[in-house]
């Protein structure tokens, strides 16, 4: 029903314009990353001598090896980048996994059962979508601190699992599962948990895949919360680490290493998006209905 092969006469002559605009779009999108790539292959002196050359230099592997293993040593003593990448990975996976598990169970309860207080609980959960962590930053810090969770993975991840991103999406999807499936399962003697495991979960595979991508990126890219909640440098996530590295953005920073780190920070989420593109696009668009 969408783009069909026979719309050509409606667009004659415009195709070259379309390609042109699209290439411009790609160029603008890719340009900052390309610059980062080039910078990550030079020495700090090359970069300091403005303008920076636009072609990659010979120091690519050296720079990456240096940041990965040693990190940056400047006004900010960063841990080795591989450690920061590891922190980010752990955090992102826990957040994505945690949110999916928690929300799929809640959505199942909300969709497949009728019980007193259901509407109230639904609105409470819906409310959590409306307030991002930036708005409740101080009290949340206090709560986490009172619970002794500063500088811990739990403290990093739990407050971010609290918002109900997945619940709404799953609930919406569960509402579309045909009644006949439920009735057939009940006749076959399956209870709700069995039904969940054998029917609902497999059917939800696409949605779970899409949400995994969205939540992984959400978790990986967290900034404010990890910044506040960790005082130990060794727990820095890569996104926080990069910002600390540039200090006040002056020219004394080892920009080549910073750019190398930046590309390393960007690589995992981009890979996830590119590889899981199909599920991700579908899930993102559907989740807003």
């Amino acid at each position: 029903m969408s783009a069909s092969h026979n719309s050509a006469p409606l667009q004659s002559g415009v195709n070259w314009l379309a390609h042109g605009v699209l290439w411009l779009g790609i160029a603008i999108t890719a340009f900052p990353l390309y610059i980062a790539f080039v910078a990550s292959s030079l020495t700090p002196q090359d970069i300091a001598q403005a303008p920076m050359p636009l072609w990659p230099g010979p120091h690519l592997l050296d720079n990456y090896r240096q940041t990965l293993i040693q990190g940056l040593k400047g006004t900010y003593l960063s841990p080795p980048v591989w450690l920061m990448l590891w922190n980010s990975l752990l955090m992102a996976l826990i957040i994505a996994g945690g949110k999916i598990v928690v929300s799929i169970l809640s959505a199942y309860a909300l969709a497949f059962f009728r019980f007193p207080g259901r509407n109230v609980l639904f609105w409470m959960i819906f409310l959590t979508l409306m307030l991002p962590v930036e708005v409740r930053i101080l009290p949340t810090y206090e709560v986490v601190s009172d619970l002794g969770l500063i500088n811990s993975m739990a403290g990093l991840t739990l407050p971010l699992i609290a918002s109900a991103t997945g619940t709404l999406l799953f609930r919406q999807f569960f509402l579309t599962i045909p009644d006949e499936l439920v009735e057939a399962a009940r006749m076959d003697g399956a209870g709700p948990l069995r039904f969940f495991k054998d029917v609902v979960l497999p059917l939800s595979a696409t949605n779970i895949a899409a949400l995994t991508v969205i939540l992984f990126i959400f978790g990986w890219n967290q900034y404010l919360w990890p910044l506040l909640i960790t005082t130990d440098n060794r727990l820095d996530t890569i996104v926080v680490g990069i910002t600390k590295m540039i200090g006040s953005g002056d020219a004394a920073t080892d920009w080549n290493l910073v750019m190398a780190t930046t590309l390393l920070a960007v690589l995992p989420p981009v890979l996830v998006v590119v590889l899981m593109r199909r599920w991700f696009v579908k899930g993102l668009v559907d989740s807003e209905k």
Partner: protein
Amino acid sequence: MQRKVVFPQKGLPYWLLAPQLAITLVFFFWPGGQAMYMSLLLQDPFGHSVQFVGLENFRLVFADEDYLQAVWRTAYFSLAVTVLAMVPGLALAVMADRVIKGGTAYTTAMLVPYAIAPAVAGVLWLFMLNPSIGVLAWWLKHAGVAWNPTLDGSDAMWLVILASAWKQVAYNFLFFLAGLQAIPKSLLEAAAIDGARPFRRFYTIVFPLLSPTTFFLLVVGLVYAFFDTFGVIDAVSQGGPASATETLVYKVYKDGIHSLDLGGSAAQSVVLMVIVVALTMIQFRFIERRVHYS
């Protein structure tokens, strides 16, 4: 909005909901409630004296010249980011909708900024526009434009606007493309046969039918500009120079963490909460009355 056939168990649903409710209560409602309560208190930074002052904090906040400046700044910033992200997003989606071959590869490439953290986007643009070593900065200087975001407030503002918009175009592109592909081709063919040339087809048929998507992206864009851009600002300018890039969300952070004005910061949080809830409610109401396809 309700299934007809449900399971009869009465206790099980509560168990299923328990994890989410537990986490939500502890890490969302409790702090949220605290924020609202704190906004009504006057506390000294070390927690020794606590005084209930009602709406005094709010009055002080609204009377504060800096705060009002931040409001205008945020409005300007949000508008700029939203427009700069939506217009190219729509243009690119329209073009991508027409190109059949290579469409997938193209869409994948365009999605990349979505995966990049706002803070990192900020770092990338900071690097390109750094007045001493930035590539783009050098070109600007070469073209005779004075550029120094470390000293000039409006230059810094443009820097954060560009970084924020660059990242958000991908999101808009995605949704606009989906919206365009949902329009039946036969509608456009009927319009062509009715005598409408391409541009006319766009603004009489395509754009009106895209309005739910446009509205949705507008709200999402505003929420993004209000909150998610924190990372960009902190990475790039830390609200400076001289508060030039201090948006409302950044001010909450600064006043709370750096200036330790707990009451004021909490009051500002509450104001922001109200704005977000209002925006989300508006969007929810609007989505209820969507245009239906025949």
